């Protein structure tokens, strides 16, 4: 027992040094978009403000229920949309491959019953979020309609200084 622990600690130290050398060269995700997105929820969802950390937990599937007990339904734009790229960079901190593997893994581990539901246009996202109870999505600020329920992030709305989902911030 003692021998294996001593031998193991020595080998783990070697790996730790190696990991320590490699970690600093991790590349940070790029985020050069010029777009700003608004977070929109179903009109009856009892939330007006979310912290950015809580928003990340919701979109990452780590929080699956609203406070009122309704299940969260994620609506996510299909690839190549500029607003999707911003969300992948800022919320998921992943590229497309990592995003795909992340959700397949979550489903395979039985952590979630279903992955995000893809939508193919801002119109579709805006329309579905108003009819699916518990739904949450993101749309470009320019596509927000007057009947959309936009949620504040850390108390800020799109256009406010320090809003975390604006390109360039």
């Amino acid at each position: 027992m003692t021998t294996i622990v001593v031998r193991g600690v020595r080998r783990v130290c070697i790996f730790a040094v190696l990991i320590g050398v490699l970690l600093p060269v991790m590349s940070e995700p790029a985020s050069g978009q010029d777009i700003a997105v608004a977070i929109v929820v179903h009109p009856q969802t009892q939330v007006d403000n979310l912290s950015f950390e809580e928003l990340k937990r919701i979109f990452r599937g780590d929080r699956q229920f609203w406070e009122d007990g309704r299940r969260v339904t994620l609506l996510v734009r299909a690839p190549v949309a500029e607003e999707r790229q911003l969300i992948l960079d800022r919320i998921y901190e992943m590229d497309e491959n990592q995003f795909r593997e992340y959700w397949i893994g979550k489903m395979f581990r039985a952590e979630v019953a279903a992955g995000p539901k893809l939508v193919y246009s801002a119109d579709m996202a805006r329309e579905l979020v108003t009819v699916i109870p518990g739904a949450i999505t993101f749309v470009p600020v320019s596509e927000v309609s007057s009947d959309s329920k936009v949620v504040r992030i850390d108390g800020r709305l799109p256009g406010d200084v320090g809003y975390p989902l604006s390109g360039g911030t």
Partner: protein
Amino acid sequence: MNRSGTVLALLAALATTPSSAQTPQVQTPFLQAFLFGDAQYSEQEGTVNDGFRLGQMVAHGNASLSERVVFFGELSISARSSGYSLAMERAIIRYEFSDRLKVSAGRYHTPVSHWNTEYHHGLWLQGSVARPEAIKFGSSYIPVHFVGAMVEGNLQGLPLYYGVGVGNGRGDNIAAAGDVGDVNARSAFVASASIRPRSLFGFRVGGAVYVDRISVGGVDLADELITSAHIVWKRGPVDAVAEFINVAHEPVAGGPSESSPAYYVHFGYRLSGDASDVMPYMRYEDMDISPGDVVFTGLLGDYAAFIAGVRYDFDDLAALKLEYRSEEFGAGPRVDAFYAQASFAIPVAGGS
């Protein structure tokens, strides 16, 4: 549309979003399914079973029966010398009260090891060709499967995830779960917890405890206590895991408790730019079986291995892994081995 776009469009078809012309409800029951599979070639010094081998074909499905009731199932088909065998690997029915409280029953991968619950029978998801020896399917070291009931959840105010379960424990064949009932009067208990700091996405540290009584052929052999701890950093290009497991057996007939520890350190790093489909990885693992262990004697021996490999994702849902292993079985000499494995995942369309 690029490769990722094609796959995501296929995934989108699975996650059938109701169109504006359809009913504005998330459809239930709703099924999402995947097929996983692999084929492998191996060359190992001193063995006669080298060559090509079809790995497990795995079907996995998630079904939302209602807003709060979900079912997860995993079936495998494995190649045997006598043909193919079909096995129910996981079948879990779960009622989700909230994020904090989810109650389920069925057949699980025992949450006594991080790798055992992070990766399942579909090999495409894991970075290496095979699981660490201590956790591999069919091994007697830990009870890989668990039949029983569990309470799980995560505490919203804290970055704490927990799981507590009671079940049958090991079967008469200790490498198998007690699928048709407990083999003795003592239930198995498992408790696991992990901390995943919100400000450090991708990092987690946790551990588990498992207790059971092992009986073989109607004879109570030993009381089993398994403890484990893990630390994980999986973010961006880095896939780093270190895990330590200790299995202790105290003979029912009397005598000292014997401990058999094992650990592994796995590190993978995905390259950047044009080489982003390539992930080199390496692992060191060690398993030290106590020679006086009343349960493991004759079943398990010491094992140590250094593994180095490369994973190449030649398609969005298919990967080729090339792996070199330098393995040491018991007191024998080191043995070199080479493995090549092609693995894949296939989304299967489903719906209500």
